[in-house]
């Protein structure tokens, strides 16, 4: 029983991180229909910015955090400006290739600039604390990430459904041209979307690095892929779905290893297997709208 509860806690903890990254992923997809393969790399940038802020510039933690999130948001906007905007009228697949290109670029530039050797990410003592309930141990980061995920989810839902910018985002996601006719500033709105998505990735990257305290230029690859799976699982483009998808995925991975340890080598395959099975029954993900073409 203890083991089960411990695994649940582990799942919740991993799931909350997946969820946070998946939200950013899904947001960009929702607006631009672009699978932003570079999202994992943006996530990596967030962690590195904080690292340099704290270690090199000796900034206090809270300030580094803010600076890192802002810098990452700017980095996200820049990738959009230079790699995606010129392709706005191009076939969708070309933008995807561009995204892959950005991802390659950031990975390799990361290796050149930050070096390929992992860096240790020292966390403030508060995050070293483990809460112990009987035999169950839960890290303080778990609570932090769940709370932060929820806060950001609320914030995002507010922006998207309660503000004018959100209205513009939703309009752009269905029909860019008509949105222009409504005097929506398309480029600016997309920039904002990227900024928010990247800021979320930065927060995800920082929390991730707090929990798994090493950072390296390719650290975003697997979390990025998992977050992508989570986003699709929940119905890509759906913010709430991404959250649910993240938790399901985290939980599923942990429970597989927890209950069938002999299958632990299949953990990554299991994530995809769940995704495929769900898609076969719900082709648009769990919360995805069935956007069947009207005939």
């Amino acid at each position, binding site marked *: 029983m203890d*083991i089960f509860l*411990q*695994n649940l806690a*582990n*799942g919740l*903890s*991993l799931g909350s991180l997946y969820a946070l990254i998946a939200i950013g992923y899904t947001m960009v997809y929702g607006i631009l229909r672009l699978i932003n393969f570079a999202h994992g790399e943006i996530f990596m940038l967030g962690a590195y910015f904080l690292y340099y802020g704290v270690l090199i510039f000796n900034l206090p933690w809270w300030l580094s955090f803010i600076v890192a999130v802002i810098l990452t948001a700017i980095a996200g906007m820049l990738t959009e400006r230079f790699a995606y905007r010129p392709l706005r009228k191009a076939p969708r697949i070309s933008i995807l290739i561009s995204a892959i290109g950005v991802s390659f670029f950031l*990975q*390799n530039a990361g*290796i050149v600039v930050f*070096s*390929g*050797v*992992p860096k*240790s*990410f*020292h966390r403030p003592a508060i995050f070293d604390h*483990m809460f112990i309930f009987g*035999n169950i*141990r839960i*890290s303080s980061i778990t609570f932090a990430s769940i709370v932060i995920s929820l806060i950001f989810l609320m914030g995002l839902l507010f922006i998207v459904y309660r503000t004018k910018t959100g209205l513009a985002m939703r309009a752009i996601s269905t029909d860019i041209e008509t949105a222009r006719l409504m005097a929506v500033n398309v480029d600016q709105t997309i920039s904002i979307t990227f900024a928010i998505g990247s800021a979320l990735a930065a927060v995800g990257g920082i929390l*991730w690095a707090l929990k*798994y*305290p*090493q950072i*390296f*230029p*390719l*650290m975003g*690859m*697997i*979390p990025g892929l998992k977050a992508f799976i989570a986003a699709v699982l929940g119905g890509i483009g759906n913010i709430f779905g991404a959250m649910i998808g993240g938790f399901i995925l985290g939980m599923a*991975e*942990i*429970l*597989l*290893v*927890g209950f069938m*340890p002999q299958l*632990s*080598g299949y*953990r*990554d395959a299991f994530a995809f297997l769940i995704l495929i099975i769900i898609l076969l029954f719900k082709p648009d993900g769990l919360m995805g709208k069935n956007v069947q073409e009207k005939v």
Partner: protein
Amino acid sequence: MKKKILFFVLMGLFILSSVVVAQDVIKIGVFEPMTGPFAVGGELSMQGYRLAQMQNPTVLGKKIELVVVDNKSDKVEAANAVSRLVNHNDVVAILGSYSSGLTIPGAEVANKAKVPMVVATATNPLVTMGKEYIYRACFIDPFQGSALAKYTYNNLGIKKAAMLVDVAQDYSVGLANFYNRTYKELGGEIVSNLKYQTGDQDFSAQMTQITSTDAGALFFPGYFGDVALIATQGRELGFKGVYMGGDTLDNPKLLEIAGEHAEGVVATTFYHPDAPAATEASQIFIDEFIKEYDEEPNAVSVMTYDAYNLLISAIEKAGSTDADAIKDALASTEDFVGAGGTITIDDMGNAIRPAVVIKVVNGEFVYEATIQP
């Protein structure tokens, strides 16, 4: 159109620049993963090569030029890279590469082209097997694996152990296999044999399971970054057993990342300054390394440092850059004094050398024991 012309001109310059070569140098090729998932290995390797080159810049009266090619941590590129070194850069000999998976396709190419190669850190037995031009400075996994198993069972007296293996890494799988075999032969029991894959960073499920067993030790033959995370998460989840791993753990970064959780980690490696096998070269290496890079040396760098020097001494001994002469000189290496210890090459092309057991105590690696082959 102008853009295109500019493009071709630049292209031409690059091609030209690679053709223009200085005359009186001896070229030695290095193929290492400078990008991709193993970039870390490439970087650590280069530290050793560079340091050695600085101290030993000439051979046979000529300057040594290292031609470094990136293999992108990718098998296909590894073969391309070596092929380029052999056919395009006309190197005399080759050094590399970090992991066995990358070294093997490269070694195939080099061996076929009859260009001698010295491998620094790839510990899989298949690297040199059946290839007369390939030699290695490090010991091999069967030895290391069984050495660790013996140490666990005999020296530490632990009869039940758990394993956590990276199924996507040949290094990890190979080492685990030999450890498992020897440990069982000795009478030990593997109570939990779990897996993960390169790129995984969450090991909480595995460590929860392992913690629930009565394993007295956890053997994790992975790369130091992953292991640092496993060690951290294991302690956080209450695992109290001994951590054990292979030569990849001998890296100051492990201590940095895992911090207090690395305390008590036991690993086999090639050398330690306090080990009886340490040579006078060891201390020189350590001092110079710290001076040059401002950090503690690691096992990878010391091996590439030795691999470079081993190769240079072979060329010196051969008295020429003839491939067969170098090959023969390498094959007949006996008691070569390297920074990491004394190397003698056996008839399989592998180094016969002891393994050193080290342990983390108070945030530092301390010498524990030496295991003779």
